[in-house]
């Protein structure tokens, strides 16, 4: 197409407002790194982004095989985005397995950039291809760019002191350079990152930089792409931003809340996917009055947190569903002794070990009902990666105000997904008030605050407050062991009433769309993005549908029942078999329609949109 080349703008630049790229390769190919670098660069250019890392549970499954494929999808836009996109515009496939696994997620006529050097007969066989898809015409409905990335990377790094294996490991940066060229992104953010990441290893810094620049230069020189694309910055609300994943935001929220409450934070945790990053992050915050304890097991993690809370710290434990199962007896103890405690469950596919690296929302029943006897605790769920900050803050507020364990239900999709986050102003963060009891004369271990029913926090080391707590039933007020039948019933009801009173501080739900009508979509947790984008699309089409998103799952916000009553139909999309739907039916006697998905993957906007239209008896 191009007749003339100019140095500054050799190709026509096309303006797009919304692009989805999927980087895919072997787990050893550095695809998560490549994707997160593209994300860092892209957020720094002012686009809104949403990401979906998708990786196997095996650290290194056999190279080149289908189970070993690791992917990272990023959607970036000039508009606000709520999901990482249903289908990709571009698939970067570093080997045949990556192509095979990810092709169905590529739009018709989408772009495939394939590394031809990884399509040997042996590679094809490992991916169960009978013939080479790059040559057999099977990809004719896509725009295929077959490029010998490995060979080109080696050529670019001829002078490098690295050995061939190390040189080959730079090929993902060559591919990243190509994408930077195609979407007109600068390389400096990634170059700065390389300088920090490999400080002291100049050979590695240089080699990766050269591979990155070579990827850009190759595209400039060869006219492999006939045009390049600009995705102008989004109009985001003014402010200071940073890119955060859910696990990062959750960590930041816990630290900020502990700082606000002026309490030391004690994390007791045991490594588990996909929650470990919270442990990693908090372990680096030693100068924020934080102690982290990598315990011998899940139970020790929560127990140590409870011990620290007994001593006046903010006890926190982080885990995923199987870990919560192990911790439940201790959580029951925290309910009985009425101490503040934050339990973070980054949900993953189950039951049992299930799908450790895939997302699911199937631990809602476990959180709300999963302990022996009558043992309620507040349950919260963040809606987006950045919302993990707010939810962590809110959980700490409730735990301290009501002297109770609080459970946060994040999930793998929120934990690893990232989005730009407008930093809150420090002086606008909610206040968290807490104080230890010190007056010996008036101290009764189970005397209750009139409004919250919280008991006083009298910590060891305070003269005159010596008292005993424990798992045996407590006598009202003095907290001594009691087997009195009527006292037991009173205490069970008191503990339940205390948790119900949490609702008095919860903001009312806000409705997106009309206040009443035919259809209400009720979401919780990470389904927010898919629901919001589908509902907005309906609104754009002039269709009346409303949505609410529940962040407080126990107790529910006070206006939930009234809202449900105003709609003819209630659709509840969940990545489980209908747990919230069941809770709504039993709490409000309201008929609900479940949209269930249990595939370890988030809802697509399309699935949501189609279901809404089906219920409204519209054809989409």
């Amino acid at each position: 197409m191009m007749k003339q080349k100019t140095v500054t703008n050799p190709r026509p630049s096309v303006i797009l407002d919304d692009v989805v790229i999927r980087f895919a390769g072997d787990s050893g190919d550095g695809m998560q790194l490549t994707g997160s670098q593209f994300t860092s660069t892209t957020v720094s250019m002012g686009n809104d982004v949403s990401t979906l890392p998708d990786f196997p549970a095996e650290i290194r499954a056999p190279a080149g095989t289908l189970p070993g494929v690791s992917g990272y999808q990023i959607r970036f836009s000039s508009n606000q985005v709520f999901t990482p996109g249903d289908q990709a515009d571009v698939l970067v496939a570093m080997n045949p397995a990556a192509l095979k696994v990810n092709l169905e997620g590529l739009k018709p006529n989408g772009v495939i950039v394939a590394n031809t050097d990884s399509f040997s007969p042996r590679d094809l066989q490992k991916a169960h291809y009978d013939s080479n898809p790059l040559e057999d015409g099977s990809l004719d409905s896509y725009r295929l760019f077959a490029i010998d990335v490995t060979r080109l990377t080696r050529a670019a790094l001829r002078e490098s002191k690295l050995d061939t294996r190390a040189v080959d490991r730079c090929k993902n940066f060559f591919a990243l350079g190509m994408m930077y060229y195609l979407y007109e992104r600068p390389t400096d953010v990634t170059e700065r990152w390389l300088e920090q990441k490999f400080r002291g290893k100049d050979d590695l810094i240089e080699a990766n930089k050269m591979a990155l620049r070579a990827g850009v230069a190759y595209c400039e020189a060869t006219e492999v792409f006939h045009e390049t694309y600009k995705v102008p910055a989004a109009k985001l609300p003014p402010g200071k931003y940073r890119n955060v994943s859910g696990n990062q935001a959750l960590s930041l929220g816990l630290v900020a809340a502990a700082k606000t409450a002026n309490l030391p934070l004690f994390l007791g945790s045991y490594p588990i996917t996909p929650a470990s990053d919270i442990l990693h992050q908090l372990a680096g915050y030693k100068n924020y009055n934080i102690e982290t304890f990598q315990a011998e097991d899940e139970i020790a993690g929560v127990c140590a947190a409870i011990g620290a809370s007994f001593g006046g710290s903010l006890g926190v434990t982080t885990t995923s569903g199987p870990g919560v199962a192990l911790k439940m007896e201790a959580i029951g103890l925290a309910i009985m002794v009425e101490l503040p405690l934050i339990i973070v469950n980054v949900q993953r596919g189950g039951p049992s070990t299930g799908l450790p690296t895939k997302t699911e929302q199937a631990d809602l029943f476990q959180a709300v009902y999963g302990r022996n006897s009558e043992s309620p605790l507040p349950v919260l769920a963040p809606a987006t990666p950045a919302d993990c900050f707010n939810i962590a803050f809110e959980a700490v507020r409730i735990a301290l105000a009501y002297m109770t364990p609080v459970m946060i239900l994040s999930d793998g999709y929120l934990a690893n997904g990232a989005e730009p986050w407008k930093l809150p102003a420090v002086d606008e963060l909610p206040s968290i008030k807490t104080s230890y009891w010190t007056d010996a004369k008036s101290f009764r271990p189970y005397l209750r605050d009139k409004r919250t029913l919280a008991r006083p926090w009298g910590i060891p080391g305070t003269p005159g407050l010596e008292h005993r707590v424990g798992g045996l039933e407590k006598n009202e007020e003095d907290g001594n062991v009691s087997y009195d039948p009527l006292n037991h019933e009173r205490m069970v009801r008191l503990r339940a009433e205390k948790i119900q009173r949490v609702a008095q501080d919860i903001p009312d739900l806000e409705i997106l769309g009309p206040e009443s009508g035919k259809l209400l979509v009720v979401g919780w947790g990470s389904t927010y993005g898919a629901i919001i984008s589908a509902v907005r699309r309906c609104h754009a089409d002039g269709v009346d549908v409303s949505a609410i998103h529940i962040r407080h799952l126990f107790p529910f916000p006070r206006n939930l029942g009234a809202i449900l009553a105003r709609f003819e139909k209630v659709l509840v999309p969940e990545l489980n078999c209908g747990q919230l739907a069941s809770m709504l039916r039993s709490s409000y006697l309201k008929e609900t329609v479940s949209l269930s998905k249990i595939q370890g993957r988030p809802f697509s906007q399309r699935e949501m949109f189609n279901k809404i239209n089906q219920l409204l008896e519209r054809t989409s």
Partner: protein
Amino acid sequence: MSTTAQMQQSPALKKKDFVSDQEVRWCPGCGDYAILNAVQQVFPTLGIPKEKFVVVSGIGCSSRFPYYMNTYGFHSIHGRAPAIATGLKVANPDLSVWVITGDGDALSIGGNHFIHTMRRNVGLKILLFNNQIYGLTKGQYSPTSEKGKKTKSSPFGSVDRPFNPISLALGAECTFVARTVDIYQKHMKEVLTRAAAHKGTAFVEILQNCNIFNDRAFANITDKPNRDDNQVVLEQGKPLVYGKEHQRGIRMSKYLPEVVDLDGSVSEDELVVHDETRPAAYAFLLSRMVAPKFPTPIGIFRAIDIDSYEDGVNEQVRSVTEKLGEGTIESLLNAGDTWIVK
């Protein structure tokens, strides 16, 4: 709650300051009473303010202990007391934290926390009441019951091999390991005083008689006529001599201990001279001396001085804070790559 802040100011604490207003509910004749008495006598002598004591327990007969102590107390869940106490101690290193546990609580359901607390050398005082039986659940064999023991859950005899708690603690590299006996009040108080002064994990096995389900389990070392012939008291710097007439000793032969008669053919110079600071292998050999072939050793098997876990954790917090400065919410949020949208 009978004690008030006023009493805290009086310098001399007494036993009664540590007696709670709760009625003690162990079976009459239980060895636990003697242990409670010894602990209540030792605490006031330690020079530690009353409000700094915390007694943490798990589940079992022994674990009712905190209710009877007028200190801060936490009666927790089965086996988890060392984990709860670890969080408490690490976050509050100035507290004197005592874990009360039993053979089932510590060695069966809580085995993992037991060994890892010792591995880390957390500054907890762990008192294990070993009665070689499950009492609270009414008489099943425990992980320290001897093989072949007939109980409700082993009517034809237990086929389990027992743990030796001292050997286990030494295997977990515990830095203070001792054994005492419920009825030996003076000895127990000496051991508890030493345990209180120890920097890291102090483990004390207390042989405790359950007169309901396993009566006289330790009769060979508690019954007057012969007990001195059946036990050897470990004393720092002293040879291992025992017996009513001090007529026997322990000698090392081919890397193993052996009993010798001090009848003139063997001199005291040849006997093992006890040293608590020797490598754990020595203490382990002593721990393998069991009846009837050997006298039961009581006293301090091992006491070495290394940094405690909580000191390590808090020192790291201090040095990182010194290096990086005290973090603020401002510095927390603004770390990493940020950009401005106008």
